[in-house]
């Protein structure tokens, strides 16, 4: 059974659908006068953030509090970590305080996996983004958003994303969001196409369960959802692309390009957006753009994950990888 959520690749189709269905029920709690459930009363969750990410941290915190967990926020900045304390010592210190789950954001790929498998701690580990590896709750909230928009809230229950065509555009190489989405969307039966300049696609991508294209314009008409990834301006300095202007001309989404998408197709972005780079204000502010919805859905998804991992005496989600390992 899954004790940890480390990678979207670890989820089976049924696991993923269960999480999405559960999140749909969790979303309804947000419509009630009292937006709180007693489910995780007496359980302590620590948000262990070695990287700044206010939006992800707040989203987890909201989810934890709505489920009545006791929440400890630990930010590495200004803490003993910046004085050289290791991840192991930090984790063990927190566990000594009686923590049931660790939500970890870390700049090093694999840090959550290491935390879950090294025997340092017993608590459940939830990956809130590690390096350029994985960000599984982001992929789940993206899939949740797609299912709602493309199939429907109630009609979507029990459904996967079979046959939906999803295009992910931007800095694939440095993106944990892209990796998680490719894994999860494939598991859910969607057809994924990655679009990026060749410099921003990793060597080895040919083994991923998706297509790769360097041409955005030919991909847009065949897309049910287009996910724009943030492109950091500093990538320009490492020669990944010549100029910001050339990048946005070839790979940015503007109103003209959006018009080439099918009428029902949506535009997604994990945030924070770099307006004028990968997306124009016109697209970002349009009805087809789901950025704000994605944020709201993030809380529901994280509630679902927390409930399914921590709500019982064991996890409700089956698991392949981390339990097999050491």
């Amino acid at each position: 059974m899954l004790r940890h959520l480390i990678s979207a690749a670890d989820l089976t189709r049924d696991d993923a659908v269960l999480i999405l269905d559960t999140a749909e029920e969790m979303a309804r709690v947000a419509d009630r006068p009292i937006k709180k459930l007693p489910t995780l009363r007496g359980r302590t969750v620590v948000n262990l953030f070695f990287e700044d990410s206010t939006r992800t941290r707040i989203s987890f915190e909201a989810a934890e509090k709505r489920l009545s967990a006791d929440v400890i926020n630990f930010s590495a900045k200004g803490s003993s970590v910046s004085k050289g304390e290791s991840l192991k010592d930090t984790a063990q210190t927190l566990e000594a305080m009686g923590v049931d789950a660790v939500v970890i954001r870390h700049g090093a790929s694999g840090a959550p996996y290491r935390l879950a498998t090294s025997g340092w701690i017993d608590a459940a580990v939830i990956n809130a983004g590690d390096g350029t590896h994985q960000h599984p709750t982001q992929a789940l909230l993206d899939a949740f958003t797609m299912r709602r928009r493309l199939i429907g809230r109630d009609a979507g229950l029990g459904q996967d994303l079979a046959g939906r065509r999803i295009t992910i555009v931007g800095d694939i190489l440095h993106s944990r969001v892209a990796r998680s989405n490719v894994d999860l969307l494939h598991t859910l039966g969607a057809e994924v196409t990655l679009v990026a300049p060749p410099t921003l696609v990793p060597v080895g991508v040919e083994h991923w369960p998706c297509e790769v294209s360097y041409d955005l314009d030919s991909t847009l008409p065949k897309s049910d959802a287009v996910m724009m990834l943030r492109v950091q301006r500093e990538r320009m300095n490492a020669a990944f692309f010549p100029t910001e202007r050339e990048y946005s001309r070839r790979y940015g989404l503007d109103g003209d390009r959006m018009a080439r998408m099918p009428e029902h197709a949506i535009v997604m972005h994990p945030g924070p957006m770099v307006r004028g780079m990968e997306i124009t204000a016109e697209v970002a502010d349009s009805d087809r753009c789901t950025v704000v919805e994605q944020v709201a859905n993030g809380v529901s998804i994280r509630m679902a994950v927390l409930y399914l991992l921590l709500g019982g005496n064991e996890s409700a989600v089956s698991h392949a990888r981390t339990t097999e390992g050491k």
Partner: protein
Amino acid sequence: MDTHTSDARPVLEGPDIARVLTRIAHEIVERAKGADDVVLLGIPTRGVFLAQRLAAKLEEITDRKIPVGSLDITMYRDDLRMHPPRALARTEIPGDGIDGRLVVLVDDVLFSGRTIRAALDALNDIGRPRAVQLAVLVDRGHRELPIRADYVGKNLPTSLRETVKVQLAEEDGRDTVLLGAKRTP
């Protein structure tokens, strides 16, 4: 609650179930003085179907639309940590809400009372009813909390070694209540 149809015997059949639901409907109208502020909330899974059937009967009697919904109590259970997490069921509160109304909770079997305790907690987070009552198809005894039903289809004295299983056409293809022996491991 595990059931084993092999040695289970029916204690209520389809016509019995229809008859007791009709009786309960009449009792609700009587006790609620016309049932004009009644909201029926079924507890998933089978309590929801019973609530819908009761609503239909109440509508026949009163010739008024009776609000009916569902109340999932999974997240409020006190035994969450004794089992793997369960899939959630739908909570559907009728449009006008429950504030100031007479809420009748509907469930299939009343046993320890813990489900109803959880349901009362859940209601608390949704609104403030004028009063809350409880209707069950079967009361099998063995209460562990100070809870009783206002409307009971059938009192069924059981031992803890026995199981009670309600089957309804909407979910199980037929209406029946089965009494069986718990398999000893």
